[in-house]
């Protein structure tokens, strides 16, 4: 048995008092979970500690908290592992999840944020036409693919640390968008276009993700929410050519055309092209808005008129142009989903890191 110190953030909004830290020493074996540590403190020292939990086996998704600053399930985080990550001299720091209001201590209001957002994406199957006489027949791979998002246990860990949501609380967020992919990736669903159109046009939809990877690291179930959001973008932009009002489609296309033309990115073209082109009505107010930055950039020699108008590296890149055109002209685009096929050779994976 070893002694672990839990440093728990306490807060009772109705009390009118500010949140405060409280420390509890618990005697438990290292392989026991942080949740058991919290429950031990609750049973032996202070029955008023608020924590939501049920299955204690990483299935129900109730005990999402931040441990040492990172979102985790308290029930599948070992005490001896948590101690190693401690930012505070060996104390295990436990806080409520972020991006959601605190109800009490470690309990956050999942209804106010997470569940509302999940409902936003129409989280049920919308089949096309009448159901078949017998079962639906779907390709095996398509079903394996959507099991990745079906593995979500709705714990809210990804919502907690979503950096887009931190500055834009309206963002639909990783959990709900991963759920949206669960239906867009399902061949039985008949509303793929409508779903994607809706999520592409919403300013808080798929193009509001800032690509920070926090949700990927947060997820205890390997759902990979950000990758699902990127696939939603790919299907919306490439398969359905949804030209959204958030510049998502235009930015993606401007980027690819920019590289086809120049080999290296030519930023002076990319920014206006993402708004539809230098003279486009959408681009002009953007350029005016950015004038303080443009003038400073010019004054410091960061941007020179010659560089802004021409691309000095372009001539080296004829081969890249041909290559992009060749790949873009192919009828079928290759995609490798490691979730489905896995690694051929695990040793190689280790070596390449």
């Amino acid at each position, binding site marked *: 048995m070893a002694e672990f110190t839990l440093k728990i953030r306490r807060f009772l909004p109705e009390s009118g008092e500010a949140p405060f830290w409280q420390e509890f020493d618990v005697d438990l074996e290292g392989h026991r979970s942080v949740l058991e540590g919290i429950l031990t403190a609750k049973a032996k020292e202070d029955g008023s500690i608020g924590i939501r939990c049920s299955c204690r086996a990483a299935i129900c998704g109730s005990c999402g908290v931040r441990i040492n600053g990172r979102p985790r399930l308290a029930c599948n985080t070992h005490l001896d592992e948590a101690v190693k990550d401690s930012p505070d001299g060996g104390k295990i720091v436990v806080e409520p999840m972020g991006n959601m209001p605190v109800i009490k201590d470690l309990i956050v209001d999942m209804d106010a944020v997470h569940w509302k957002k999940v409902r936003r994406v129409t989280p049920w199957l919308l089949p096309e036409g009448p159901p078949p006489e017998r079962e639906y027949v779907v390709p095996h791979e398509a079903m394996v693919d959507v099991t990745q998002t079906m593995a979500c246990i709705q714990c809210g860990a990804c919502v907690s640390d979503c950096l887009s949501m931190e500055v*834009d609380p309206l963002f639909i967020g990783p959990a709900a968008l991963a759920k949206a992919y669960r239906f867009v990736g399902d061949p039985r669903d008949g509303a793929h276009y409508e779903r994607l159109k809706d999520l592409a046009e919403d300013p808080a939809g798929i*193009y509001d993700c800032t690509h920070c990877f926090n949700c990927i690291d947060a997820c205890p179930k390997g759902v990979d929410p950000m990758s699902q959001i990127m696939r939603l973008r*790919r299907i919306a932009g490439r398969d359905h050519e949804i030209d959204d009002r958030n510049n998502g489609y235009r930015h993606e296309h401007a980027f690819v055309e920019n590289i086809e033309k120049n080999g290296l990115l030519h930023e002076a073209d990319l920014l206006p092209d993402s708004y539809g082109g230098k003279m486009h009505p959408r681009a002009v107010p953007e350029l005016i808005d950015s004038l303080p*930055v443009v003038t400073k950039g010019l004054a410091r020699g960061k941007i020179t008129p010659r560089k802004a108008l021409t691309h000095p590296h372009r001539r080296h890149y004829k081969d890249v142009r041909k*290559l992009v055109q060749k*790949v*873009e002209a*192919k009828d079928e685009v290759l995609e490798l989903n490691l979730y489905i096929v896995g*690694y*051929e050779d695990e040793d190689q994976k280790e070596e390449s890191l």
Partner: protein
Amino acid sequence: MKVAYWPGCVSRGFTPELHGAMEKVAPLLDLELIELDRASCCGAGVISEHSQELADTLNARTFALAERTGEALMMNICSTCQGSMGECQERLDANSEYRGAINDNLRDEGLKYDRAVTNKNLAWVVVEEIGLDELRSRVKRPLSGLKVGPFYGCYIVRPRERLGIDEERPRHTYLHQIIEALGGTVIDYAGVYKCCGFPIITMNKEASLKQAGRHLGDAVDADADCLVTPCPLCHLNLDLQQPLAERVVGRELNLPVLHLPQLLGLALGLEPKELGLGRHVVKPTSVIDWTQAVVAGTPGEAAA
């Protein structure tokens, strides 16, 4: 040490001082840079949103060019290159059939990716290949009293598994370690591992600038003299766009942001002008005493 050197796009575009500084710093670290001057943009995660095959093909081409130099180590100076190329390399390495199909795309140029190259960011090269003791021994002008906030950029710290971050290789602490080895003081602030907001600058400008403004503000509040970043895209949002970020968050920031090679260069004895510090939108006056061309707060003197 010879490395296949991939400078990326932005280091030769809107942040030309980055590539320039790297070229000046390399000989001081005994790094011989074999520049991959025909390699293309990594796609920055955007091309793979359009077509995974295209992104993987372009990066397989870059890796093949690196392999052709005969060096097993390829160095980049951009967190975004590290992350997005790493994602492509993971797929290419995982499956021989897929790798073969991508190599077919490269056949016209006579190129082939053979899994024979490791791609490391400058920060990783400094800590893992050169070593911090070696770096310390080369410091000519310690950054004593300079309070530096690290800003890593998402692509180089997440996802941890793909980036090989573990107890043995705590790559998420390398900037901290480098700042300390150069004699500076690390400022820990809320934004160290957060997103600069650049990927959504054309999609949701307000949210994008709010991110940049918030992290800069947190660093100012933590009393940082400057930030340092290994990512030129972060630099665009944190430095170039700082006047707009100030407007969005409604406060004055005026916080200089240095590229990693610039910070190394200052400590290794190079002059601020050589390192292109005059090219930043936010003048690094709190870092540099321009009249003396020395780092602020050298020993015996209070930090500016």
